[in-house]
């Protein structure tokens, strides 16, 4: 979750996961929603926007009340369910927030936030909020190279950059667009 200091979401990603096992829930993630899941009004969509707005508001309220000198950990049982924790980093106008359960090491998560920020920095050369606003799709790409299904997949920002660059290269190569074969889209429209 990336939110700016005006409570505007800049990046949200939820790795929801229905609980199968009582222990442990290994879900380090941007947000792990468990009990909310059962209350979805529609079964086929990800988190309904009303819900995630509520989460953003809840998180922002907590964060905005915290001065800079305090710890980076907040217990968020009230918002995300029992045992959930949150680490955040406040950088310039942005909060970078990770929410996870008690099966993760808090400081390691904080390190991961740092890796994410460093990667953005490399990618955008002195990242600022505007970069993030206009390149939110790129953020998704970076995030996907770092976290998969709520688990850390890559911790080296160099490796992440390599993958992201490769993706960019692939995009450029094929930007000479060709139409999607009609047969496929027609199949869907039926």
């Amino acid at each position, binding site marked *: 979750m990336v939110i700016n200091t005006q409570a505007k979401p800049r*990046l*949200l*990603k939820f*790795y929801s*996961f229905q609980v199968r*096992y009582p*222990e442990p829930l*290994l879900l380090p993630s941007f947000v792990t929603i468990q009990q909310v899941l059962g209350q*979805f009004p*529609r*079964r*086929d*969509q*990800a988190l309904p*926007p*009303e819900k995630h707005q509520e989460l953003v508001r809840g998180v922002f309220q907590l964060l905005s009340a915290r*001065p800079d*000198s*305090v*710890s980076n*950990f907040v*217990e968020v049982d009230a918002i995300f369910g029992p*045992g959930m924790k949150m680490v955040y980093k406040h950088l310039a106008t942005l909060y970078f927030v990770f929410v996870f359960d008690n*099966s993760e*090491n*808090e*400081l*390691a998560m904080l*390190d*991961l936030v*740092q890796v994410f920020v460093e990667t953005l920095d490399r990618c955008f050369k002195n990242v600022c909020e505007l970069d993030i606003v*206009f*390149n*939110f*799709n*790129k953020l998704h*790409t970076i995030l*996907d190279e770092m976290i*998969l*299904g*709520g*688990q*850390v*997949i*890559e*911790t*080296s920002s160099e490796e992440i950059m390599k993958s992201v660059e490769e*993706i960019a290269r*692939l995009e*450029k*190569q*094929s*930007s000479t*667009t*060709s*139409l*999607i074969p009609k047969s496929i*889209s027609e199949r*869907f*429209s039926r």
Partner: protein
Amino acid sequence: MALSGMRGLSVFISDIRNCHNKEQERLRVDKELGNIRTRFKNEKGLSPYEKKKYVWKMLYIYMLGYDVDFGHMETVSLISAPKYPEKQVGYIVTSCLLNENNDFLRMVINTVRNDIIGRNETFQCLALTMVGNIGGKEFSESLAPDVQKLLISSSCRPVVRKKAALCLLRLYRKNPDVVNIDGWADRMAQLLDERDLGVLTSVMSLFVSLVSNNAEAYWNCLPKCVRILERLARNQDIPQEYTYYGIPSPWLQVKTMRALQYFPTVEDPNARRALFEVLQRILMGTDVVKNVNKNNASHAVLFEALALVMHLDAEKEMMSQCVALLGKFIAVREPNIRYLGLENMTRMLLVTDVQDIIKRHQAQIITSLKDPDISIRRRALDLLYGMCDVTNAKEIVEELLQYLNTAEFAMREELSLKAAILAEKFAPDLSWYVDVILQLIDKAGDFVSDDIWYRVVQFVTNNEDLQSYAAGKAREYLDKPAIHETMVKVSAYLLGEYGHLLARRPGCSPKELFAIINDKLPTVSTSTVAILLSTYAKILMHTQPPDAGLQQQILTIFKKYESYIDVEIQQRAVEYFELSRKGSALADVLAEMPKFPERESALLKKAEDAEVDTAEQSAIKLRSQQQTSSALVVAEHPSANGSAPAANHLTLVKVPSQTVSDIPESSATYEEVSNPTVEALKENGPVEVESKATDISEINHQTKVEPPSTSRSTSPADLLADLLGPLAIEGPPAAEQYPVQGLDANQSPVGDLALATLEDQSNSVQPIVNVEEKFHILCTKDSGVLYEDPHIQIGLKAEWRAHHGRLVLFMGNKNTSPLMSVRALILPPSHLKMELSSVPDTIPPRAQVQVPLEVANLRASRDVAVLDFSYTFGTALVDAKLRLPVVLNKFLQPINLSPEEFFPQWKALTVHSLKVQEVVKGVKPLPLPEMANLFMSLHMAVSPGLDTNPNNLVACTTFFSEATRAMLCLIRVETDPQDRTQLRLTVASGDQYLTFELKEFIKEHLIDIPRTQAAPPPGPVQPQLPAAVPATYNDPGAMLAGLL
């Protein structure tokens, strides 16, 4: 990424940014959504580029919090696009917008599968990422084998394999069957040999999940984990890009140590040694440095290492090293580390033997309670709560109370609940407990649930010592200008019940009490009004002499509330009004509340229920199981820490009452009559309780005993089986005789020890009081010491009601270490029905437990009940058989008869067996007044003047038993002033057994003061009576033989 090429998206984002308010934003979004909708409808004209652009816009709108309920099909269809950019957008946006249940996803399963098994690595990555993010049952079923293949394939690039690992993890969670454990243990071991750290990190996540589900299956992987740790932490054999601020991949280290914590233990000595070497290196080699990121990373590893050390139950040396480190952390400036230090210290409480070291940091922890960071304050609160015991309860609870003044609202409820629980669990004395709770109500009334004040009332009601104190305190609070309504409730209740105890204090006359309470009446809610009305009625009752003015005032209030809207209050008002006019009847109805039955603290229960079962909380839970409630066990002196016995689960032993005459009716009637008695008890108000104290030094003083209060009641059948052997399992009373018989056989060799307790000959621990003497003292008194040896003191306190009795055994541990395997078994004679409450298995150091014992008298007999009591202290087993002073005179109630009542009765009893006369010789010479005193002490009322001869003595009493109910007994003693060693004794009653038993009983007491002589001389035996052989009256063994 072709962002520059998506001008439309950038424009849209700019527009949104330029919106000044939410309304404008909504308009812009709606316009865009409308646009996208029409474009999608007319799909044919849509270029892939446009499609891609719109899909990104949809994701952006969704993120802003607007509903995007269309276009899903278009999004999903992009996945099937042949070119990378469209495909990528399709995969990313799909995994953000949709979940596993979406129908469109089913339609692309084949496409996804083709991407996964295809040759294009970039497509593989995209597909794996989406499947890993969405999960889904159908994906799991159809794709798991392919994903597995990718993971173990040697030809795949690491970038694919690491994604396959996490994708498989997600599928495994959805459906654990996808990983077949048999094959996977070996495969996993191979995967853990992986050199590429990216792949290894992902594999480790998968491994943690697998091993957490079934550690047994993956034993072979344990050494591999240790090797990975060695590789990282010791050899630092790692590519440059995986060192993070100089630390070799902290994430992998953390994950590996996490995985190791799922194994119950590390048995292999080599692996264990290697592991501890690495851990030692981590523990010692981490310093706080300037660079924040480096600090975080190194401490992430360090804290995980601490957790692993705790889990592995390392040697004490290493543990104290850990505590020392934590002690350092909780004092550093860096808030994150302070936070984690506190958190881990709370976990550390689980480890035995370190609590003392943790306590040394108490001052520092209390400082953290004042930290500006609420996260840290919460951690400090948890830790203080966990580390609290009798030694530091006072300090900690008072600190919490102080903090309550400044705590933010969010924390107050938790804080007050915790303070209340600690006060109850570890109160060094009960007046302190009352103080704490009243302060709590005063400071945070809103957060004090009813449970908390009910509990105070229970304690005060059950402890007479406390009553005037509590009432006085309540009175003080009422003087405060604005008090919380809960305080009004509790004060009014206490003053209603016990206000009269304060009558002599200034400002505490009934009138003044009424006035100050009545001041609150206009402002309180209905539930409080009800309490106030009761209080008024009670004040009125206690006003002696009656005060007409006060009565008028109170009656006016009752009258006023007779038409109140709330039915409960109406009823109270009407009833109190009527009762008040009845005068003395009021006193009966409104007598002091009887003691509350002992019950589990609702508060503690609530706390237990509320606890989420995570590691740190179970630490607290465990401790709360080890430490009994103060109400049950009050330990006065500082107990050595860590001495809380781990085995103390308060398993309680219940001993069934045994009756030889296993007539079903007898137990039925017992049940029947017990109820009226209880009612009688209620009506008469609480029975006078002589004295009580929570102070152990006073307990040494024989008569001072502990007030009853909470207890738990469980009677695990298996424990019973332990005690009584396999026979007990058969259940019926007849079976229960066998163990008694066996015991009898064992005891007969030492039977001639007679009056003394029958100590097992191997007993090295001897009583330090004269047990026989104590028994005889207790025969005429209702409280005192029954037994005492260097380790334990057993006190006793009894209350009698007709043929029922309630005894409480007070077992006080005099040592600083616990008494283990405490067992108590009652061997009742046939005429008594006895039920002993459960006895805790362990008596904590310096603590006292109370064991109630219910007695019912079935018929007259002089047989004595025996308490078979044993415990182990260290290696010594101490076993004592103690006679219980449940003797005939306990069921006597003296009665004074006038001559007009006496003589007709006396004359009516002419039947030989009902009226027995005997010349008793060898009587201890006593002056007549002393003899009268002796009779009085045996509950027989001497009525002077009934017999005209001044040398004679006539006494009357009522004997209660189930068989006889209340039966009048008449006794006449004719003494010879010339020879005081002989007298003629006549006893008459309506029951021949009773007459005989009572005569023998009086004889025993007349012939000698029993404590100076072992056994009374044999008296005549009447063969038709089932009495024991007189020579063995006091030999429990023989007595038991008689029993059978």
